[in-house]
């Protein structure tokens, strides 16, 4: 069991409140996912030449300020925002070079996400504790994909927490479990994918990204996923300007959507939506099985 939550703000004036609206959604799914949680926040895009890279280090006492000094000696960094044991670096260096340099010089640092819009946070602990640790309620942006995890297929570690990312500005969270993550992984590794955890969800994330990179739309990529994934899933996905949800053809895992003129909010259960302004008059519905729903930032 896990909890998924997503929020896309249609009303621009609410964007500074994205985190404040999201935190109760995340905490509302504590019972579904008490062991870890995470959020991918999509903000206004940085300049076309720049990329944001979200980093994470599992060592609580990692010396981020001295890391920043070394980083700036080797790469053109315009911003380096340290948050506890996360760090969001904005750079116009090639993100692949930065990634390779990190793997060589700082193997304890994980790259959580790369993109012009996405910032990513994930860690173990109760959702309320994780939200506090990284001050989620102060985050602003256009849309957010969040997850609370109750581990079933792999250990409780930060790297096994969701969201997962692949490529740039793409993330996925998962409620459910896949029975054939090994074969998905082997297939993708042959095609050059590098896995960073042993969570079944990482395979789903990389599979869909690979499909879309190969020319599929999200819809046709998911058609292939229905064939290739053996298991249950509600997936919530984010791109730089979209939020999308899909449930497997048996719809074993719940999801409910609330839409108003101001926002689209998605959660595993209504109790995560109950606090949202105007939710009493929202259009409420459950996504139908095997149907892709997506919303675009205006």
């Amino acid at each position, binding site marked *: 069991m896990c909890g998924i939550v997503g929020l896309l703000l249609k009303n621009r004036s609410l964007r500074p409140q994205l985190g404040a609206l999201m935190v109760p959604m995340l905490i509302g799914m504590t019972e579904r996912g008490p062991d870890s949680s995470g959020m991918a926040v999509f903000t206004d895009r940085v300049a076309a030449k720049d990329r944001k890279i979200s980093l994470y280090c599992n060592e609580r006492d990692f010396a981020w300020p001295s890391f920043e000094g070394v980083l700036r000696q080797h790469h053109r960094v315009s911003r380096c925002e340290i948050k506890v044991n996360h760090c969001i670096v904005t750079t116009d260096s090639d993100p692949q070079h930065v990634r390779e340099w990190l793997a060589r010089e700082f193997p304890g640092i994980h790259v959580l996400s790369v993109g012009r819009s996405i910032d990513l946070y994930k860690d173990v602990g109760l959702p309320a504790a994780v939200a506090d640790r990284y001050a989620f309620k102060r985050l602003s942006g256009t849309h957010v994909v969040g997850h609370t995890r109750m581990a079933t297929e792999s250990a409780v570690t930060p790297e096994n927490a969701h969201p997962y990312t692949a490529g740039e500005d793409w993330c996925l969270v998962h409620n459910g479990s896949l029975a054939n993550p090994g074969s998905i992984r082997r297939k993708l590794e042959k095609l050059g994918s590098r896995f960073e955890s042993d969570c079944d969800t990482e395979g789903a994330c990389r599979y869909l990204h690979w499909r879309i990179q190969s020319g599929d739309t999200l819809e046709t990529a998911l058609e292939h996923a229905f064939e290739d994934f053996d298991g249950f899933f509600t997936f919530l996905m984010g791109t730089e300007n979209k939020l999308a949800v899909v449930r497997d053809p048996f*719809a074993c895992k719940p999801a409910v959507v609330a839409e108003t003129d101001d926002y689209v909010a998605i959660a595993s259960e209504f109790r995560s939506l109950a*606090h949202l302004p105007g939710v009493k008059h929202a259009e*409420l*519905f459950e996504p139908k099985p095997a149907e892709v729903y997506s919303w675009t930032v205006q």
Partner: protein
Amino acid sequence: MDRAMRASSRSVVFDLARQELRELNKFLHGDLGGVSSVTVENPDGANSIAVGINAPVTVEVNGHAGYYVAGMNQGGTVVVHGNAGPGCAENMMSGRVEVTGFASGGAGASAHGGLLVIRGDAGLRCGISLKGGDIVVGGDVGSFSGFMAQAGRMVVCGSAGEGLGDSIYEAVIYVRGTVTALGSDARLEPMGEDDLRVVGKLLADAGMKHLPSEFKRIASAKTLYHWNADANLTY
């Protein structure tokens, strides 16, 4: 809570914005002391609202409910003025549960008795393993509804998804709209006089106005009732 004062009014309000859900359920499981009506305010999608009622009490839930609302109901009347999460009225023994909005998956699962009325749509697996309860759905039902239903009736005023009535036993399903696909061993049968009477009565009980003659009857072809040695590789 000043129980004596509230009990004397024979009606009690629980506000789940201020009170624990367990307080409500404990009250419902205890000596009701003459209280016949309970109102639940601000349910906000909480799980397990009014489960395990075993008394002729009416519970009005003013808002959306989460998982298992009115589960195991025995003799109570529960009205959800909103939507219900998965497993609404599951394993109901008797009484009546009504949802004015939509109900999620597994509504009325394995209900032994009573009447479940859903005014909107029901999700997947509505009436799965039904054991004698009755379900009336104003809208559509999702796929795999009536799966392995053993006894009871389902009346669907809208349409049904895939696998309707798969491996059904003695329960009967009536559908007014289209059926995407019947499940294994489920078949369409002609509506008889008894069927028209049953559908008419259930529609009247549910307060829905349709003509019984608009409904189709779906029941078991009974080909799965006995071992078939010629088909043993297909089992």
